[in-house]
């Protein structure tokens, strides 16, 4: 199962680059595992033997896998199983072929990403490694029965390499989860950050906080238009007090929102233009065109009330009731 390029956030970057796994990082990981040139040498010597036992190990490996119900679903048809077995064999043989460099890491990351993509749980992944190590132990031991110490060292070398693989694989799992969570979080924040609030009959309040980029402007406008229809709104107050900077792009988005609302018969008042924003806008030559703007939200609401024909009157001093009781 080759990794499709669409899965990558940027097809010009390798997985290793995306996940910040550099030559140095790889060296450091090997250092942690005490994986040195002598380990590499031992594994290379094992290569010819590996060719001999690979087939047998793989057969028993899949026999074990297919005995587990949850795993069967991953190998629905025979074609797939044959292909996966061939890949598995290549993977096993690669373990004893030397040059465990950044390209090796990239291959391993791809395998991890593929397994993550088909939702293979990590627990199965780990048990597969464990099975493999136990299965090859016997074969490695038989390569040189005269020197059990040496075969044990070879087995340890293999184990170190397997742990390097595991560390890379699990990183792909973590990285992918993190990206999913981040994407979901941003979605939720965006949803929450653009509420459309009915303020009075026929009036909606739309406070904007944070940056306005194209996707957000789009979502904001869509929300607003739906709310205009649902609430039969005639006047909208868009408050941009919480928008730190207004450049020509943001201004353009605002004008589009105002135009779209107007097409649905609603007037828009933009409030919260701070002195700083007014200054930068004029300096940059940004023109909001015919859009009605006011300084703060209070003015915005007062103007909107006037447009709707409301008149708000004060009916007494605040706390007058208390004063009365005291007297």
């Amino acid at each position: 199962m080759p990794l499709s390029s669409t899965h990558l956030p940027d097809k010009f970057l390798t997985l290793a680059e995306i996940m910040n796994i550099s030559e140095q990082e790889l060296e450091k990981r090997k250092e942690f595992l005490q994986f040195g040139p002598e380990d590499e040498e031992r594994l290379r010597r094992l290569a010819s033997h590996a060719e001999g036992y690979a087939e047998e190990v793989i057969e028993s490996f899949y026999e074990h896998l297919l005995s587990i119900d949850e795993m069967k679903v991953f190998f629905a048809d025979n074609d797939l199983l044959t292909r996966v077995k061939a890949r598995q064999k290549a993977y096993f043989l690669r373990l004893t072929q030397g040059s465990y460099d950044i390209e090796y890491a990239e291959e391993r990351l791809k395998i991890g990403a593929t397994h993550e993509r088909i939702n293979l749980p990590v627990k199965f992944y780990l048990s597969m490694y464990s099975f493999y190590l136990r299965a090859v132990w016997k074969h490695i031991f038989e390569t040189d029965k005269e020197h059990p110490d040496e075969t044990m060292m070879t087995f340890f070398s293999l184990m170190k390499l397997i742990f390097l693989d595991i560390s890379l694989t699990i990183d792909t799992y973590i990285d992918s989860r993190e990206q999913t969570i981040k994407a979901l979080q941003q979605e939720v924040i965006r949803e929450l950050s653009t509420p459309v609030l009915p303020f009075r009959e026929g009036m909606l309040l739309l406070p904007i906080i944070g940056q306005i980029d194209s996707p957000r402007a789009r979502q904001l406008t869509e929300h607003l238009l739906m709310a205009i229809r649902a609430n039969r709104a005639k006047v909208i107050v868009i408050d941009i007090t919480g928008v730190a900077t207004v450049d020509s792009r943001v201004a353009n988005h605002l004008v589009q929102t105002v135009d779209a609302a107007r097409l649905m018969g609603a007037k828009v008042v933009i409030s919260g233009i701070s002195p700083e924003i007014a200054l930068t806008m004029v300096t940059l030559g940004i023109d909001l065109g015919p859009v009605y703007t006011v300084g703060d939200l209070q003015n915005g609401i007062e103007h909107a009330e006037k447009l709707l024909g409301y008149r708000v009157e004060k009916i007494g001093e605040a706390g007058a009731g208390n004063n009365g009781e005291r007297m």
Partner: protein
Amino acid sequence: MEVPILKQGDYLIASIQGALADSDLTRLQENLVRTVRRHRSKGVVIDVTVLDVMDSFAARILRSITMMTRLMGAKVAIVGIQPEIAFSMVQLGLKLDGTMTSLDLEDGIAMLKAADKEDGFGNHGR
């Protein structure tokens, strides 16, 4: 598809019933201008609620209807533009500048009446 033009007091209502070909639009434009003349109407409401597409040709026709009727002393309100249409229209730069727009037929007629009152035509004539 022919667009029926109904007379309602001083106002005309052109209620679009389904998707329109370009020729239907030009015919609507002609019919409207003639009907405004015949009934000496003060305003026209064009109801586009059922339209699910608004291309540049349709937008141009709506604008030119507005300008033509204005020359004849009547006002036009475009009513019932749906959220999706409004959004795609501004993206395409079709802003219908200079035309009155409102949410639905009821609001449209109320808006025309209010505009007439402002102009001081309130209770003159009939």
